[in-house]
């Protein structure tokens, strides 16, 4: 088992040194975060030394397969995983380390300053309460509004996220809503207290394809309306391509590539990212071109492969050689576009 060597950390290029298109202040700054689950079977390295910044006005995407650590990273930021142990690193929120906050302080941050939107709106809304009441409750606990004022604001917010006839809809229960409407209601709940940052964990995965675009549109419009930043967690590169400013690709708890969306899509620097991009069906191009899946399956986070965690699945890996022996560091491919591969894209890419 190879733990990331922390003395080398200062030599790692700092993702904070650059800005995406969002030019606002830095809201969230995660620094060399390493977090593990200690299970009976061993230590699960869920998040292994990741760093990223999110600015006001920016959409930052975290992309990866299931189990790559993208949701765990977000949940750790929110302090929502009681069983996780943060071994090192910092989670700076407007300059203050959230890891030092008490549970009471965190409760004010959650929902008030950082709000989360969940994957499945079917199960993330409480079935026994009306939608209006659930949305209004946010303003009651965070802003101390009266029942009446909170409901008034809830109806305004439901209107804002594009729910028709919000007054009538507020009195309905979640089961009377369609999937897209429920996700809008979830978004309404999240933005009730005008948070500075929205963390959207696979916000459209459970939705019908036709509704996905609408919900994403709402999300972007809301971001501008309340002037916040968004962390978008997804496995869907199509969603990322259209929306995000900067993105980070995760694999087995590691950050394997970091850059702007254009850099990652057009100047792919990591073989894993290339694999992800190749496995997207191409609707406009050559229809006979076969899909190229990434062979194998994601590694165990308890007994990770030696060297580069991706080497058993990488078609360019030198095994035996550096790929199976040495864990790669994040390396600058140029102007802050980072990649955790021993080789530059010029080296491994077939010309």
């Amino acid at each position, binding site marked *: 088992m190879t733990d990331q060597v922390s003395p080398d950390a200062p030599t790692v290029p700092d993702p904070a040194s650059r800005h995406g298109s969002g030019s606002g202040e830095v809201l969230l700054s995660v620094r060399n975060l390493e977090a593990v689950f200690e299970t009976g079977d061993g230590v699960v390295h869920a998040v292994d030394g990741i760093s990223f910044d999110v600015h006001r006005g920016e959409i930052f995407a975290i992309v990866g397969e299931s189990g790559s650590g993208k949701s765990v990273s977000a949940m750790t930021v*929110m302090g*929502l995983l009681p069983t996780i142990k943060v071994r090192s690193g910092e989670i700076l929120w407007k300059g203050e380390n959230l890891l030092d906050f008490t549970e009471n302080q965190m*409760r*004010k*941050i*959650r*929902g*008030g300053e950082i*709000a*989360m939107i*969940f*994957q*499945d709106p079917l*199960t*993330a*809304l*409480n*079935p*026994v*309460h009306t939608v209006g009441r659930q949305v209004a*409750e*946010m303003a009651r*606990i*965070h802003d101390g509004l009266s029942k009446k004022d909170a409901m008034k604001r809830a109806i305004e917010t439901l209107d804002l996220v*594009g729910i*028709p*006839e919000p007054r*009538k*809809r507020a009195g*309905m*229960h979640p089961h*009377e809503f*369609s999937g*897209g*409407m429920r996700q809008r209601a*979830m978004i309404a*709940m*999240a933005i009730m207290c005008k948070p500075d940052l929205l963390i959207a964990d696979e916000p459209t995965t459970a939705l019908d394809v*036709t*509704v996905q675009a*609408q919900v994403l*549109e709402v999300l972007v419009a809301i971001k501008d309306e309340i002037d916040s930043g968004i962390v978008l967690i997804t496995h869907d590169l199509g969603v990322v391509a259209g929306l995000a400013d900067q993105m980070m690709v995760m694999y087995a708890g590691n950050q394997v590539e970091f850059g702007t969306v254009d850099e990652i899509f057009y100047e792919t620097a990591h073989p894993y990212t290339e694999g992800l991009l190749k496995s997207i069906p191409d609707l406009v191009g050559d229809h006979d071109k076969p899909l190229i899946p990434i062979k194998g399956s994601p590694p165990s986070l308890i007994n990770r492969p030696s060297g580069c965690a991706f080497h058993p699945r990488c078609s360019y890996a030198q095994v035996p050689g550096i790929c199976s022996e040495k864990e790669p560091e994040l390396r600058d491919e140029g102007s802050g576009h980072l990649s955790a591969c021993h080789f530059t894209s010029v080296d491994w890419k077939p010309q």
Partner: protein
Amino acid sequence: MSNADTEAAVETPASDETKTTSLWGDAWKQFKRNKLALVGLGFIILVILTAIFADLIAPYSITERDSGRFREGPSADHWFGTDIIGRDLFSRVVYGARVSMRIGLSATAIALVIGVIMGSIAGFVGGLVEAAIMRFIDIFLAIPYIILAIAVATVFGKSENSVIIVLGFLGWLGVARIVRASFLQLKKQEYVEAAHALGFSSIRIMFRHILPNALQPIIVYGTIAIGSTILSEAALSFLGVGPRDPTPAWGLMVSQGRSDLANAPHLLFFPGLAIALTVTAFVFVGDGLRDALDPKLKDR
């Protein structure tokens, strides 16, 4: 956003319809299909009305004696006959509804309040707290309630109140187990996680978000518990650790009537029938509620 508009348009007719049927409306519709439950509900309402208006219904008071007419069978003067010292049995059974309902409802209310709080804490907090509460419950469930009842009766005196204390205290053990089981299952739901993520406090999540979802088994258990509490009260009265004469407890009347079973069976029959019908009615209603509130059976 033209898609959003069509989506809404398609939904509007359905939503007009659903407006009139709330969750409880649905449950009532389902409940009405169960004829036994309806009969049970009717009988319970009758017993409750009898208890409330006992003064108007009963032709005699509970202590009034018709001198010289002992152990008489049913007649026009005394519909259920008279007891061993000439009191009107019908009046006593009517007043007995008060005793039974008072004990049944109070003891069940105590059981539900304590049980819901303890069960919620055990299920939600988990760990040592849960282990402590559950072991405490196990210990008390291992003691036969008759022994506990006799102990309490000796301390507090043989009265309605000591029966309420004993049955209420024993009742919460079962309630807590049910509530804990529901909480264990419900706290893993995504809406609970979402509530945490949006900054709700634990107390709020427990009682405002999880508990309403756990009501179904609690309501069903509570309804049946009222019936079984009435039965237990009768048993305690029968054994002489409950209320004492002249309190018209049904169990006590059965107990007093058993020595005259051969020559005056009505002394045992009428109060016994009252107990049996009331308890059965609560069980029927409980069963009806179970079906009516079970979302899985909705489309039957």
